[in-house]
């Protein structure tokens, strides 16, 4: 079980690896598409890498609901708790 801060830091690392964006720019209120300019293929790569890193499953139909970084952090935290 990781804290929200740990999940955010891990997610920022994955986003950095995929897109080159500075990890500190990956903040809770940032939108993946609007603010971080992440396209659908990058998003799926980030999702797959996050599943491996956090040991959770993020169903494809759930991905469209993950609009912001915060949405993803909450989902991962919830999935880890379940």
């Amino acid at each position, binding site marked *: 079980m990781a804290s929200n801060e740990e999940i955010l830091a891990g997610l920022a690392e994955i986003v950095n*690896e*995929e*897109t*080159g964006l500075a990890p500190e720019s990956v903040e809770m209120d940032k939108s993946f598409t609007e603010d971080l300019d992440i396209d659908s*293929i990058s998003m*799926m*790569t980030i999702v*797959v890498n996050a*599943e*491996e890193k956090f040991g959770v499953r993020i169903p494809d139909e759930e991905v469209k609901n993950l609009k912001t970084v915060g949405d993803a952090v909450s989902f991962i935290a919830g999935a880890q708790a379940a």
Partner: protein
Amino acid sequence: MTRKVVITGLGATTPIGGDVPTMWKNALKGVSGAHTLEDDWVAKYELPVHFAARCSTPALEVLSRVEAKRMDPSTQFGVIAAREAWADSGITEVDHDRLAVAFATGIGGVWTLLDAWDTLKEKGPRRVLPMTVPMLMPNGVAAAVSLDLGARAGAHTPVSACASGTEALHLGLDLIRSGKADVVMCGGAEAAIHPMPLAAFSSMQALSRRNDDPEHASRPYDLDRDGFVMGEGAGALVLEAEEHALARGARIYAELAGTSVTSDSYHITAPDPEGLGATRALKAAMFDGRIQAEDVVHVNAHATSTPVGDKPEYTALRAALGTHVDNVAVSATKSQMGHLLGASGAVEAVLTVLAVYERKAPLTINLENQDPEIPLDVVTSSRALPAGDIVALSNSFGFGGHNAVIAVRSV
């Protein structure tokens, strides 16, 4: 009136240089790019061949990590070479709707394909990343170059095994002559130094097994040649309609005077022993460029260093050029950089253009005992090419019976 097509930009990343100036300096000096492979997979899979000719500058030293992640290694090499050629051309403004791409590969994204297969077997389908398809497709390199340059007049991928790179120039010439484009980024890229292709080429007895002496393994025309050395990399050339180049005051290296493609229809891998398909290709390229045998001063030969391949090319050269073949300076540059498969024709085209432009022929190394059945005038030490109007040819032949020839004329 046929449109005249000229070459105004050159790019390359190869086992003997990560850019054109370095490659050319080494090609005139005579160096080997072949080295023992340090990868653990050589022993793990008990590969019969322990060496290859890797690019001297790793792609990750040129591209950003994020950029490289979305490209197969073959595409990485292609984009590096295309960017160099584009910068070299000095083109600052272009009608993007009149800019095309003809960028070849022999095999395509083999690393991506096989890595994804390993991932599927080890971790399941969920871990096969979404970029896998665009990275493994053979047109991936042409598509990436087109995106990079904003080329919107078509992005083509000729695939004809080891003739692919030369066929890209054949297509590029046609695109400009027929008025479909004014500028074409042509080239070829390959990155197949992976255990599977090494095993497969070994299994057909195509690769040299001189494991204790990789630097001397690629020895075209030598009596002790025993196969080719796998290389990797890319070459790129900017083709431009002459009037387009003149209008912008471009530096013109040479004219792409003629090209041709023929097919043997003889055997799936063996060359026609009489070199009939290659002869027809040579004659067709010369006809296309209105070239007489006496105009030809230099040939960059396909010459891979296989026991069966080198001789039919000689037979074809003699058939096409007649006794004048004795006056032609022949370079077998695969002796230095190995065989870049689908990229070889493009890289050798770069060398051929420079030979005409600089009036110097690149060296053939490792020729100790020349095969008496191949009495060509092989360039083994510094050789100047004559002044005046000159023509050089570059040949490429591929499994499947593909023959492609280009003719480059001085301007």
